[in-house]
């Protein structure tokens, strides 16, 4: 797909310009799929020339990463001056590459993180699924308990999510562990009494 063009979803080829913002569905010339394209001004946006400008005068602020380049903005996270090349715009905010990288790895940064492991669902599955083959609960119940305790304070998802799965998983896994303890106690205790 070339720049300023929109491709057909079925065949992947660029569609003619008259398809853009057409009031009805039109058939793709190549594969006949019925398409409707809603295009926005960004499709024909001019390149804003992100090449950084060199410093002109000695008193001018320069980029933290490129001292020879003129600073145009400060990082909203660390405050370093950045040139047009180093400025990463995320919505309304400006970040430097370093803050962007560390923010992606930090689980609490909601606006930058792009991946989360759902430990609460994992713990709940470990607590419930092996009930059908109950001997497995000897291993899965402690694992579920560990996951609940280890990740209780960690943010779960980038979207609103309660900790009810953690609570349910904890209760079920605790019941399983208690069941195993009782089983071992009643299986072993009579022998001790005999001896």
């Amino acid at each position, binding site marked *: 797909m070339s720049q300023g063009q*929109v491709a057909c*979803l079925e065949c992947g080829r660029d569609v003619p*310009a008259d398809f853009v913002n057409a009031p009805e569905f039109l058939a793709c010339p190549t594969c006949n799929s019925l*398409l409707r394209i809603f295009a*926005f001004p960004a499709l024909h946006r001019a390149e804003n020339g992100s090449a950084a400008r060199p410093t002109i005068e000695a008193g001018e602020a320069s980029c933290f990463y490129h001292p020879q380049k003129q600073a145009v903005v400060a990082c909203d996270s660390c405050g370093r001056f950045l040139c047009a090349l180093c400025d990463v715009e995320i919505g*309304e905010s400006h970040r430097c590459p370093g803050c962007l990288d560390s923010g992606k790895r930090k689980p609490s940064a909601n606006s930058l993180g*792009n991946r*989360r492991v759902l430990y609460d669902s994992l713990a709940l599955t470990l607590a419930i699924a092996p009930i059908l083959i109950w001997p497995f609960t000897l291993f899965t119940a402690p694992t579920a308990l560990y996951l609940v305790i280890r990740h209780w304070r960690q943010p779960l998802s980038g*979207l609103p999510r309660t900790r009810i799965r953690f609570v349910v998983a904890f209760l079920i896994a605790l019941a399983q562990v208690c069941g195993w303890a009782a089983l071992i106690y009643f299986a072993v205790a009579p022998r001790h009494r005999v001896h």
Partner: protein
Amino acid sequence: MGSAKIYRRLASAHRFGVGSGGWSTLYLGPDHLLLRSTNAFVETYRRFYFRDIEAITLCKTLRGYLWNGAFGFLLFFFCVAFFYLRGWFSGSAAVILLVALLINLARGPTSRASLQTRVQTRPLPLVRLRSALKLIRMLEEKIAAAQADLPVVETPPLTPRSIPPAPPRMQAIALPPPLSGQTRSARWSWVHLVTFSLLVVGGLLCLSEARQHRPGLFYWALGVVGLNLAWGLAALVRQRFVPLPSPVISIAWINLALHALGIPAVYFAFFIFYAMRAVEATRRQQVPPAQMRLSDLPLMPGYASILFSYALICVTLGAVGYLLMMIYRWKPSQPRAG
């Protein structure tokens, strides 16, 4: 986590696939769209800022009509079966299919959508046309407002003369291959055609077997079922290397799941039942046979109903698959409509 409450859920859809399957949900944020993909226990987020969105493409699909056809076909057969046999199984299956058909009709035609930015094009979970159009109309205002101050390249205005004429058949064939590496035919596979033919033949054989219970027919049906499984695997290998329309791929997967999982599960259930009968025979001090033979299958309770259902599913799948292959085979060569 307080900032997470700013999101409003817009749409959601499930996609099938090994590794790439799972739920995909679209959320509306203050200045961006958030696409959440859930795969097992991992969530992946993609943010599309209104300022960066270049286009949203909507494509009508046949999926809704296919589901209507499949539901209607099965409903008809189960209704006929209910009126002749008066069994609870066919009656309840007919009711469930009727409800499914009505729900599918109420939700309307289906679509696919994708969102394009300068650096990526991502599918959106908008699977129903009506709701997709409604959603895009709502988003249009927000995106237009966010892009109001963008510097735009001057493009020559489109006049009727500047619009290229509809390409005739030969021009469409002479187009260069697509950039995505699809060098072979993207809509045709004889392996799949044989798979769907086998499904229809196997289904018809099983229908006859369900009605007549002849030993010869039983072994023929069994042979075709085995052949279907082997050929279904070949179809999967084929579609791994040749891009095919998604409904055809779905039918190939359903076929394999039916033969690789469904039939062994039914056989296992019969095996358990047989073992229980053997225990019962031992308790009554009768001599049970050592193991279940294939020829004992027709004697099991519910065998005819299960075989009948299996045959119907096979014939439906095969017919729909065959029809799709025919539609997609001739679709590219048609001149552009309108």
